């Protein structure tokens, strides 16, 4: 389904990642600064690798040798950013419908209703992002990414900027998303617990390298400083 083999130099940091996954939910798991966000930015098309290639469902997205680099607006991958990045000048509804409009997708009232209900954001429709709580903002960001009918959903630590209570508020929505939406997900996190609750396949990233690819057992193998 998704396969990539890429290299990228960022100042002194050298990233070289190679993995393949067929899973419904894949966790990109590793400590902060390991290069996880750079990897999904490359999958989204926001960052171009120096070398290598990226394929998704048999389609070539990036190939340095063949000079292929599909721009983000033609990949149709939903992206939920760590900081939400809602458009401040649009209402919640305007944000939710933005992707559908840009991709020129047919309006589907049933779909909108279903996703709005799943994320419980119907009452927020006419508000602007400035008036939302952190948790509400992330739920709208998830809805915005889903309503563009993504081929793949990229989630970059969508819970990291939230406190424990807000996290507990969002997690059930993510689980529902995994069970109800039919879109494969790539979930970036440095929290083993989050990965355990959502993912089936784990790609462990350490210092710009893929340390291991496997099942949830990879989360247990992580040495904790406090336990050594």
């Amino acid at each position: 389904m998704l396969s990539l083999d890429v290299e990228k130099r960022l100042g002194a940091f050298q990233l070289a990642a190679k993995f393949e996954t067929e899973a419904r939910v894949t966790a990109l798991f590793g400590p902060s600064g390991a290069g996880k966000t750079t990897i999904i930015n490359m999958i989204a098309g926001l960052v171009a690798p120096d070398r290598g290639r990226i394929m998704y469902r048999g389609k070539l997205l990036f190939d340095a040798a063949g000079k292929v680099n599909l721009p983000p607006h033609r990949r149709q991958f939903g992206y939920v950013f760590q900081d939400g990045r809602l458009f401040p000048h649009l209402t919640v509804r305007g944000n939710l419908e933005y992707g559908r409009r840009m991709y020129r997708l047919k309006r589907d009232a049933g779909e909108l209703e279903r996703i709005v209900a799943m994320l419980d954001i119907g009452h927020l429709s006419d508000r602007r992002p400035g008036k939302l709580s952190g948790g509400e903002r992330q739920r709208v960001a998830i809805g915005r990414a889903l309503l563009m009918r993504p081929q793949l959903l990229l989630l970059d630590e969508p819970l990291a900027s939230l406190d424990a209570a807000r996290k507990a508020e969002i997690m059930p929505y993510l689980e529902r998303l995994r069970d109800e939406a039919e879109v494969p997900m790539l979930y970036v996190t440095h929290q083993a617990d989050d990965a355990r609750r959502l993912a089936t396949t784990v790609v462990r990233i350490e210092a710009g390298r893929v340390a291991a690819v496997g099942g949830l057992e990879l989360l247990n193998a992580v040495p904790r400083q406090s336990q050594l």
Partner: protein
Amino acid sequence: MAMFELSPDEWTAVQLSLRIAVWATIVSLPFGIAVAYVLARKEFWGKALLDGIVHLPLVLPPVVTGYLLLISFGRRGPVGAFLDDWFGIVFSFRWTGAALACGVMAFPLLVRAVRLSIEAIDRRLEQAAATLGANRSLAFLTVTLPLALPGIIAGMVLAFAKALGEFGATITFVSNIPGQTQTISAAIYTYTQVPGGDAPALRLVAVAVAISLVALVVSEWFARRAGVRLHGD
């Protein structure tokens, strides 16, 4: 009350000034936004030079700018002759020339205001727009431009005010011809040079103050509305 009534000549100068300032502002707006965007978002060879050229009218003596316009956009100037031959557009000693001079003088103020507001916009919002299917131009139209609106309005008002009051470059380039190129500023200057010109000069001064105040109030209103839209209702 006759004292407060504008004579036909004064009225002509007021109308001419408004027409020149409005045209100078509107025509320079798309160029101003384009240059501001390029300066705010792109890195390229010669960027410092472009920045310098745009700001030149701000630091050059206006007479110098006017004279440069005269030798390049005058009927015998290289650009002026070309435009006259091919498009029939003539600037010298016409109100269009005054609008050009005002537009050039106001350009740095416009670019500066728009550039600052574009630089203040989080680029990551443009990235988010790209992942949501917007190509560069759509992202610019649907995200960057609306978010820069308060700065664009502020820049337009600054440019309009500058165009309305421009004197040195205009009088050097297109002279001071009543009905053609005599703006409020030029008319006031002319009246102060002749005996008995105090009353008409004062009337025009009052008009200039009134127009400037109205422009400021209107822009403040627009900017506040745009600001409210951006920072919650």
